[in-house]
């Protein structure tokens, strides 16, 4: 029914940047009391649409309507007065101020012209309780986990706006339990009649919480539909515009012969970081690391690479004892490491794609034997092609690339050093479906070429698909090693959860 009244509606939105059409006559209708997922690969136009709905951008065509009446949004503050609130992936609050101040920033209750702190904290307590948070409103926000901060941000957005809530990848840095908690809050808000827009890369989450879905591709509206009439494959097919075979969750067949022992970590650990662990790694195998955020997965990767020095245990490479006290030691032995936080520890934002690709190889060669420009172009071009890096030019700054392409660049950086062993920490987090597939394909290829890999990932289906062995981390300790038919999501979840059940019992 074309005349349905939406809480928030976009009609025929057009947005043009230079000569690039970011949004091409896109319609989007949001009903009160629904959770509406907005999907699309990176660059499909999701963020542009959101920015127009929140007043951060002005559309070049079309109009935005609230409750059927056209509205004009010059800035995010105006969006707020129309009842539209937004929460971004990176929490946009002040970590060094109290929870209550963050909730009331900009509209603090006053008494005789001064901030009425007591009233503010009393009201904060009430608000937080509605979101299931029993925390002290006068304590510093930064002391709490990202999940709590995220909920505070949602509470703030809802209290300020109260009609439409836009969640832009809110779950990207949350673990499983935290996501579940967030979903309870979303369902609760839905029951209260709020319209919720939910943007994510995780399809499972879309099906878990959303009622309808709008799919964008290359700036065009592809489909808006109720989710109960769609399968997972339908959604992926619409997002990619082509058929992708999603391989079932079966482990790598056991029949493949295992290569020689490459690495042996024995009682390797670091105080207050990772309990001593034993791990033998063979050529041609992928060891998947499963565990919740904060389980010590990243810490284990860092001491394996020497990013943090181990203070106990020993490591031997091909049978010879050695020390890996810093990354340069590891790199000399043919290690490579793609860190979890791509932006903070991976990319050199202002440097070119080319320089980002060759930098580790150059570091290995030393400062004196510089690769000249032609050699750099040749190497960067080779990997740009084989990894399908989508960049207008190899000389453009890497910060202009999408997350998926940045990840491919960092992977290329290590492949250029001709490594024997790669550690990948969440290589597919927050990247689009196409790049995701490319990276999984590369992991499989490298394993078959005889490299040893350690891959940390929260996506169990994915870990199961490419791992020859899985280790499970819990509370900074390696608690299980799974082989053969035990490599399946059910067993892994059990291994991760075990401890909690014991405690409950």
């Amino acid at each position, binding site marked *: 029914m074309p005349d349905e009244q939406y809480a928030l509606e976009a009609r025929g939105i057009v947005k043009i940047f230079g000569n690039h059409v970011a949004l091409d006559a896109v319609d989007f209708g949001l009903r009160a009391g629904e959770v509406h997922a907005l999907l699309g690969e990176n660059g499909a136009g999701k963020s542009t649409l959101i920015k127009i709905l929140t007043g951060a951008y002005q559309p070049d065509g079309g109009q935005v309507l609230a409750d059927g009446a056209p509205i004009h949004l010059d800035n995010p503050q105006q969006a707020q007065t129309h009842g539209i609130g937004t929460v971004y992936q990176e929490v946009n609050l002040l970590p060094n101020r109290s929870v209550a101040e963050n909730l009331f920033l900009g509209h603090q209750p006053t008494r005789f012209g001064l901030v009425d702190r007591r009233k503010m904290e009393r009201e904060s307590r009430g608000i937080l309780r509605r979101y299931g948070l029993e925390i002290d409103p006068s304590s510093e926000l930064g002391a709490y986990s990202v999940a709590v901060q995220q909920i505070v941000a949602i509470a703030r957005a809802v209290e300020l706006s109260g009609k439409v809530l836009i969640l832009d990848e809110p779950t990207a840095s949350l673990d499983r339990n935290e996501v579940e908690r967030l979903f309870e809050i979303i369902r609760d808000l839905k029951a209260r009649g709020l319209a919720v827009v939910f943007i994510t890369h995780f399809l499972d989450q879309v099906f878990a919480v959303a009622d309808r879905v709008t799919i964008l591709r290359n700036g065009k509206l592809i489909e808006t539909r109720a989710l109960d009439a769609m399968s997972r494959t339908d959604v992926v097919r619409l997002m990619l515009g082509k058929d992708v075979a999603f391989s079932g969750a079966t482990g790598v067949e056991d029949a493949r012969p295992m290569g020689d022992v490459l690495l042996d970590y024995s009682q390797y650990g670091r105080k207050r970081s990772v309990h001593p662990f034993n791990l033998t790694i063979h050529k041609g195998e992928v060891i998947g690391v499963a565990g919740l955020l904060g389980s010590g997965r990243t810490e284990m990767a860092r001491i394996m*690479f020497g*990013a943090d020095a181990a203070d106990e245990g020993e490591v031997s490479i091909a049978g010879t004892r050695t020390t890996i006290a*810093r*990354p*340069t030691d590891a*790199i000399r032995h043919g290690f490579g*490491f793609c*860190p979890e936080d791509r932006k*903070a*520890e*991976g*990319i*050199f*934002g*202002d*440097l070119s794609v080319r*320089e980002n690709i060759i*930098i*580790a190889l*150059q*570091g*290995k*060669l*030393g*400062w*004196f*034997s*510089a*690769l000249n420009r032609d050699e750099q172009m040749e190497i960067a071009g080779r990997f740009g092609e084989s990894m399908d890096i989508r960049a207008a*030019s190899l*000389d453009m700054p890497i910060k202009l690339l999408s997350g998926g392409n940045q990840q491919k660049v960092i992977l290329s*950086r290590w492949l250029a050093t001709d490594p024997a062993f790669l550690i990948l920490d969440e290589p597919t987090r927050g990247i689009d479906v196409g790049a995701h597939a490319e990276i999984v394909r590369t992991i499989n290829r490298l394993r078959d070429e005889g490299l040893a890999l350690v891959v940390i990932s929260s996506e169990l289906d994915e870990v199961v698909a490419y791992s020859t062995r899985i280790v499970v981390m819990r509370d900074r300790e390696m608690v299980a090693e799974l082989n053969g038919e035990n490599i399946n999501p059910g067993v892994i979840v059990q291994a991760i959860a075990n401890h909690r059940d014991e405690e409950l019992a």
Partner: protein
Amino acid sequence: MTRRILSRLANPQLLALVGVLLINWLLFPNFFRITWQDGRLFGSLIDVLNRGAPVAILAIGMVGVIATKGVDLSVGAVMAMAGAVAATLVVAGYPAPVAVAAALAVGLACGLWNGFLVAVLDIQPIVATLVLMVAGRGIAQLITEGFIVTFTDPVLIFIGTGSFLGFPMAAVIALALLVLVTLLVRKTALGLFIEAVGVNRAAASLAGIRSRMLLLYVYGLSGVCAAIAGIIVAGDIRGADANNAGLWLELDAILAVVIGGTSLLGGRFSVPLAVLGALIIQAMNTGILVSGFPPEFNLIVKAALIFLVLIIQSPLASRIMPTRMPVRETSK
């Protein structure tokens, strides 16, 4: 190829220098006149090169430091120390090469000290180098015992006032350093590593760059450059003035680097453009001097220039004009 060279010449810094020189010429018609006398060149342009050399040399050291997201506030004080050491030694009867070597060694030691504070102790560069900025001048005063130590050593005086192929010695030294350091950072991978550390030190360490060593190198080089400038200034006035030698020149050097398009947030840098920045500053100083304005105008004009540079580099300006200042064109 020629197109590439031409497009490289058409950068904002060179245009600014030409602009300043043209204004000078309008105010003082004899500005471009150069004469040959006693085996050397004379004229306002030569004066710009000669007077601009110390700041240019400081800028050559400073640009690497700033590219690593640091800053070296101590260079003015290091100049005073180096001058004091050289002067005191020749007065005490040591040969000039020993005095020069000792002064350079003092500069290197100061630079490495700064580098140690920044790289190993992880102190913020502005605070770390502030220590030596304050203490260094005090040390220089202790060395000279509070006097202006004058000398007659011909070698030191030649370094400050002599000429080579008609050009002032100071300018020749600056040019040699410019060529040497540019080759050092661009023909090796040092320049790339410096930029990488400046853009993202955590990522640089994980990519296998020894960022601590690199920081020691750049601060060490900055100290050596400051010592060279200090020797030149001492040779020029035939004495070491611990109170005034190099006073506030660290700010001129930083300004020169910023005019040269290197961001104080680190990253992309260019040694030649920083030197060009130093020449722009000196061309303004000389212009005000020769055109008969009172020298007090100097500070106001300089402030106006800083303001202009800040506006050009501001986010607002980069939104209006999409071309950014650091030039690294791809030739295709």
